[in-house]
Every structure is written in structure tokens, then in C-alpha cells.
């Protein structure tokens, strides 16, 4: 069952990722990215990351992608210009990409020692309680610095966006 779920969500992620690169309209790319993020959230759940899966859906698929779609709508971004593809890249690009992916898979299988398979529920350290405990003890300083970073980002975004065109 775990393998089947992994296969389904991995296929969704890869297909949506390819769609992101192939589509010429930004809205199609944005919706594909939402698909990738949703599939990745399901994979995080399989790996025992309950908190990260929820945060992925809320922060990434919710907040950040809404921001993207909002800007695309606001700027009325249309289809981008057709790019010039040479015949060499047109016919050899996809096979070479597949060979490259196969090499990546082979290398990772070779380098990583044979470890026990991923079973849902085998790792319990990803609950909100555990994450919160780590966040407010070991990682307290980075967490507080992050709040300053967010504040600076908000101020920077406001300053940049309200600048008048002369």
C-alpha cells in the first residue's frame, strides 16, 4: 500500500513538474506547481512529517501560490513568446533528459546503503508537539531571527511595491 501511494503521488509530482516547464502560460504553470506541492505534502505524510505536510499545504499551496496567481492576474501576463528550438535539441533533448534521470536514479541507488523501506507510522518525531519542542529549545535563536527576516521582507515588499514611477 505504501509503495502504491508513493507511486501515485510521485507520478503526480513528476507530471505536474514537467507540465510546469512545458506550459507557456504562467497560470498553467502556477496550477501545475500547486499540484506538485499537494503531491509533496502527501509524500511528507508518508514519511511521518505531519506538521510539515500541513505547513506545506497552508504556507506553500495556500499563501505563496495565491500570491503568485494574484500577481499573474494583476499583471495580466499572457502567453510567452515561442522560443527558438534547434532541431538537435528538439529530437535529442528528451532522450538525453531521460538518460540523465536514469543516471541520477542509478547513482543514488548505488551510493545509498540498503536501508529499511519507508513504512507509514514508523517515525513519530514529526508531530506538531515534537516540532514545537525542537523549535523552542534547540532552534530557538534561528526561529527568532526568522521573525526579524519576515519583518524585513514585509517592509521591503511594501517599499518596493508603493514606489511611484517617475
Amino acid at each position, binding site marked *: 500500500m*505504501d509503495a502504491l501511494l508513493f507511486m501515485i503521488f510521485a507520478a503526480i509530482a513528476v507530471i505536474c513538474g514537467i507540465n510546469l516547464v512545458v506550459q507557456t502560460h504562467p497560470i498553467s504553470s502556477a496550477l501545475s506547481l500547486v499540484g506538485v506541492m499537494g503531491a509533496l505534502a502527501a509524500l511528507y505524510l508518508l514519511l511521518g512529517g505531519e506538521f510539515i505536510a500541513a505547513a506545506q499545504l497552508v504556507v506553500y499551496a495556500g499563501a505563496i501560490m495565491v500570491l503568485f496567481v494574484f500577481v499573474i492576474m494583476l499583471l495580466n501576463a499572457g502567453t510567452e513568446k515561442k522560443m527558438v528550438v534547434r532541431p538537435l535539441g528538439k529530437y535529442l533533448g528528451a532522450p538525453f533528459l531521460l538518460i540523465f534521470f536514469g543516471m541520477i536514479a542509478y547513482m543514488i541507488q548505488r551510493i545509498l546503503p540498503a536501508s529499511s523501506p519507508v513504512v507509514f507510522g514508523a517515525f513519530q518525531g*514529526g508531530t506538531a508537539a515534537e516540532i514545537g519542542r525542537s523549535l523552542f529549545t534547540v532552534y530557538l535563536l534561528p526561529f527568532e531571527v526568522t521573525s526579524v527576516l519576515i519583518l524585513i521582507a514585509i517592509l521591503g515588499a*511594501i517599499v518596493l511595491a508603493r514606489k511611484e514611477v517617475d
Partner: protein
Amino acid sequence: MPLGPLPAAVPPSWYLTLSAILFALGVLGFLLRRNIITVFMSIELMLNAVNLSFVTFSYVLKRNDGHIFSFFVMVVAAAEAAVGLAIILTVFKNRQTLEIDEVSSLKN
């Protein structure tokens, strides 16, 4: 459970392979696309792929430090998206274009 050649559970290396493939797709989009917003979304795809690696290694090592790290990556990505989209808005206001090849003042 009999699923033909498919094992009951997959090893962590399959997750890492998926992460590498998604990262490669992000690099591809970053290099090939000419729309500044799509380029920005490719960067988000790369960040997501790296997050999957972090969470997988967290599972392998049975520690939740990887989860914390991917949480910080999400926070930085949110800040980056806010500032980056504000920059894109300003560029569009000044130049009325989203093509990255037409925004090349630093080149000359």
C-alpha cells in the same frame, strides 16, 4: 499484499531520486523559460525538491532536525516570494514587460 513486481514499501532512495528529478526539472524551467514569473516558480520547485530530501533524511536518521530545516526553508521562501513579486511588479510598472531578455540593463 501482492502487487505484482511492486514491493510493499519503497526504500528512502526512491524518495531521494524523486527529489533529484524534481530539482532537475526546476533547473530546466529556470534555464528555458523566458517569463520572469515562470522562472520564479521554477525556483520554488527547486526549493520544494530540496525540502523532500530534508524530510527523507529526517526519516532515515529518525531525527526531526530535517523537518525544522525544511520549515525554515518554507519561511525563507515566503519572504523571498513577497520581495521577489514586489520586484516583478516594479519591473513591470517601469518597463511594461515580463520577458527576462528585455530586462538587461546590467548587460550593457
